[in-house]
């Protein structure tokens, strides 16, 4: 394993110190592992908090700032944060208007956020929790822990962050989070496995001509292993999976994200976006807004995820609202 780290144990602390040094506009509690906006809560504004294992940067710390999150709680690499983090984040950013927890649907994340919510309620903080579960590679059935939360998290955090900024109340904000999640679907393929620092070696071995199809963002193997094909073919099967699950009609508007898993050159992400655009154009579906880049990564995994959100007018206008974070910034 070759990594630009000091020790596997210190990665998160060192990175948090780096984030603190690079972003004076953030209040980074390195020891307590909370990244919050500097300046404290704004009276009357619902606070939006997210978190999850590290290794997915810029998710979530890169999305803390005006127009998006109030705080993010980074866990150890690929390990959900502990309840104390969310409790201290909630205490730091709650203005009295309540806190929304945006939680990706993994057992660990759910349990830890659930405990945090109980602790916060004990301190008279009102908490609503919304689960993100957009990954269609996992069937939501009694056979699974339910769909994973992946790329749609960015959409939920952006749109809901804008709504909270406008002064909407907690119920309204939580409802919108559910709406965005319900309208979003993701699918990912990996060209290589990633190496978690503590594990020291790749999560799986992938021959030079094979890809893992339907992977998550934690280095776990995917739904199936297939031969590498052209970008066009790979995108076609991803889009089949997405559109099977959520058909889109001619004239509908979408927000599309083509997201690199960490080691994929941007030039390839644009090649992929071009194919996604062709598939949607053939169905007369409009890409109203898009993101192409590394937003929800899986350390040094090569691969791509595609997220499509069927966006209504509210979502699009909230999408366009100003946002000022290190990883997403416009109108500000």
């Amino acid at each position, binding site marked *: 394993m070759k990594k630009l780290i000091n020790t596997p144990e210190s990665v998160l602390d060192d990175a948090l110190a780096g984030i603190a040094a690079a972003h004076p506009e953030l209040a980074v509690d390195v020891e307590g592992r909370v990244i919050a906006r500097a300046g404290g809560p704004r009276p009357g504004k619902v606070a939006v908090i997210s978190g999850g*294992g590290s290794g997915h940067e810029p998710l979530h710390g890169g999305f803390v700032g005006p127009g998006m999150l109030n705080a993010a709680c980074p*866990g*150890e*690499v*690929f*390990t*959900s*944060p*502990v*309840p*104390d983090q969310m409790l201290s984040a909630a205490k730091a950013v709650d203005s009295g208007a309540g806190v929304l927890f945006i939680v990706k649907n*993994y*057992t*660990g994340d759910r*349990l*830890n956020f*659930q*405990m945090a919510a109980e602790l916060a309620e004990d301190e008279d903080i009102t908490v609503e929790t919304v689960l993100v579960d957009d990954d269609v*590679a*996992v*069937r939501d059935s*009694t*056979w*699974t*822990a339910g769909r*994973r939360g992946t790329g749609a998290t960015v959409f939920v955090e952006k749109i809901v962050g804008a709504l909270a900024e406008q002064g909407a109340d907690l119920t309204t904000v939580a409802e919108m989070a559910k709406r965005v999640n319900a309208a979003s679907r993701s699918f990912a393929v990996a060209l290589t496995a990633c190496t*978690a620092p*503590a*594990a020291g070696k790749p*999560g*799986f071995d992938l021959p030079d001509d094979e890809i893992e199809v339907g992977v*998550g963002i*934690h*280095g*776990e*193997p995917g*739904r*199936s292993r297939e031969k590498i094909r052209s970008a066009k073919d790979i995108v076609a099967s991803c889009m089949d999976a997405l559109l099977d699950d959520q058909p889109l009609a001619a004239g509908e508007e979408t927000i599309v994200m083509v997201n690199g898993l960490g080691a994929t050159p941007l030039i390839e992400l644009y090649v992929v976006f071009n194919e996604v655009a062709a598939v949607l154009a053939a169905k007369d579906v409009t890409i109203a807004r898009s993101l192409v880049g590394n937003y929800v990564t899986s350390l040094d995994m090569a691969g791509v995820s595609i997220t499509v959100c069927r966006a209504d007018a509210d979502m699009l206008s909230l999408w366009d609202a100003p946002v000022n974070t290190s990883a997403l910034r416009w109108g500000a």
Partner: protein
Amino acid sequence: GVLTTAFFVAWFEEIAKQVRLQRERLTALDAAIGDADHGTNLDRGFTEVGKALTGSPPTSPGQALLSAGTTLIRRVGGASGPLYGSAFRAMGKAVAEPVTLAGFAAAFDAGVVAVEQLGKAVPGDKTMVDALVPASRALALAVRDGVGAREAFDLAARAAEEGARATIPLRARKGRASYLGERSIGHEDPGAASSALIVASLATVATAAS
């Protein structure tokens, strides 16, 4: 035949030692069907448990268990942190002094029930529950049959170990491994393996003490 506070402290020491030794194995099991962090998670957690128990030595078995459980919840994260943390906390709340084998067995079962309630897994879902439930059943039977603690813990350890191994052919229905569908078949569940390790540590400590 009474389990002292020192016994529980020794149990956590033994768990910490075994987790450290088997860290790579647990992580490798997790790499196959999960995210390759189970060994690291538990190593971090039980190292912290050791520090907590040394830092503020518990004055009762209940305190030792509560302290360990709280520490795991506060330091591990992931699925196993809240699950094991809640298990030890439930045991700590359920246990009454002096701790007889029967009292321990009941407390242990309370811990297992806490895991089942929190994680909503049932036996056969390919989780730690598959090791913990047989262990608890073995303890209850041992109490019914009136065997001593050492033998009871041996039986529980064997049951947990068998339960863990029995997860190999199962298809996961809970946790990350469930994302793999059919591909989860053929691998031992890492949480079941660590549960077996935790119960085996009980037997080791009892043997050493006797």
